[in-house]
């Protein structure tokens, strides 16, 4: 896939593959195209070339050219960069909006109860405005809101940004837990290598809009020279 904004090319022939039930990380520092890739999958940015194929129940669906609404309705949810909550709606209203798509509505109450159980702080603050919560609470709300849509595939864009290290571990641990319960397929973009590899089955390293390295396991990722250089400082 190739993509960019106007004359600026961001992704140069990126190709990745995610299988059902996997947790795949997309590692890269700022400005290497992680978010653009996420936006392409969600239909927010239209790729200039290439295709994005979803294979479910033996059916192939090309996502390119579809609107974000259609893609959400196929069971893909994004926890966007910067969280993008509705700041002047309450926590509960944010969560209920997460279940907007028709396929998610019948399960709303069950999912809501589950989210409150998984994130007790959200239950405590359900009547509070989302914008008035701390960064960590907002990130949890963003993840919970995405889960409310009953997704099969969850895309998470940089959950660690702006969070204290202790909160990052907590959010990452929660994502792993939820992934098991919901049997999700997860693609997570991160620059926090240590945290990301805690939950990843495997991953890709993206540099300047190209896949620089594909690690078939977290061990392969950790041993890769680029990782040592950029993330581990070895």
């Amino acid at each position, binding site marked *: 896939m190739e993509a960019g904004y106007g004359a600026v090319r961001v992704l140069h022939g990126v190709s990745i593959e995610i299988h059902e039930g996997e947790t795949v990380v997309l590692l890269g520092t700022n400005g290497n195209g992680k978010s653009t890739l996420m936006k392409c999958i*969600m239909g*927010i940015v239209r790729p200039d070339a290439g295709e994005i194929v979803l294979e479910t129940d033996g059916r192939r669906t090309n996502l390119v050219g579809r*609107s*974000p*609404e259609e893609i*959400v*309705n196929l069971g893909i*949810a*994004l926890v*966007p960069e910067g969280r*993008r*909550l*509705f*700041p*002047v*709606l309450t926590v509960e*209203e944010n969560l*209920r*909006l*997460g*279940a*907007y*798509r028709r396929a998610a*509505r019948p399960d709303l109450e069950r999912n809501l109860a589950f989210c409150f159980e998984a994130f007790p702080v959200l239950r405590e603050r359900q009547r509070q*405005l989302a*914008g*008035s919560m701390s960064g960590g609470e907002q990130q949890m709300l963003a993840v919970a*809101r995405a889960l409310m*849509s009953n997704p099969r595939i969850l895309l998470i864009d940089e959950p660690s940004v702006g969070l204290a290290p202790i909160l990052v571990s907590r959010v990452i641990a929660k994502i792993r837990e939820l992934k098991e319960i919901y049997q999700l397929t997860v693609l997570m973009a991160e620059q926090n290598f240590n945290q990301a590899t805690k939950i990843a089955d495997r991953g890709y390293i993206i540099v300047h809009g190209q896949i620089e390295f594909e690690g078939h396991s977290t061990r392969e990722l950790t041993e890769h020279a680029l990782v040592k250089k950029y993330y581990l400082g070895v």
Partner: protein
Amino acid sequence: MFSFHLLLNVIVAGILLGGFYAAVSLGITLAFGLLNVVNIAHPAFVILGSYAAFVVNSRFGLDPILAGLLFMPVFFLLGIGVYRIYYASFEKRAEESLRGLVFFFGIIFIIEVSLSLQYGVDYRSVHAAYVGDSFRLGPIELAFRLAIPCAMALVLTLALHLFLSRTFYGRAVKAVSQDHLALRLMGADPVRIKGLAFGIAIATASLAGALLIMIGPVEPSIGREYIGRVFAIAVLGGMGSIGGTLVAALILGVLESLTSTFYGPSWALAVSFGILLLVLAVRPSGLVGRAG
């Protein structure tokens, strides 16, 4: 002559008037407060609603309130149509601020001129058996022509409140101007949501118009008197809060009623602009405004 009895009746009349103001302002709260669409033509749509009620009332003798309710679906579609044009011409290209305002000015003139050409500039009114009657509640005299509009306004307020707080569409309407991309990520199309909400806002004008012509006679340009009032109420009510709109409308109604009784009717309009300025200076987020 000041007396407690008079004061009580003036306050009650103000509450009834305020209820009616709520009906006129709810459309502004929706369009301006929640959708960021500066629909200054809303009072003109209300006048259009008055004339719709007038026409079916004078031709077929239909009850004006019933006429207002019957025209709501027509106004709903009209609202969606207006929003589509507004969206395609201005909002899509991010030119809505000034040009959008001119667009709605244009709509005011189109509505006023069309009504003047068709029905003249004379005052028109509706007839219903109960319009001239009143009933007594202890020391308070309640005129049906004020009490019924107030009751209908309360029903409308409650209906809109339930729509916004209990339905998926309603919650999406509240969210759409906060982050329209995030709304798309929930699977909702912001343009459809805004069209639907604007349609509902214009549909309320149909009922509000019927209430207006029940309260008193209407001529095509009378809507101009309401532009200041409805914006004062929407701002005082906290921009986008249905309950806040009702409270603000009641406050304004009572203040206007007191002012026009004790100082003279010509001061009544000064009250709304006074409130608008005061609120913008002291508490711009309104009575129940949520901090952005």
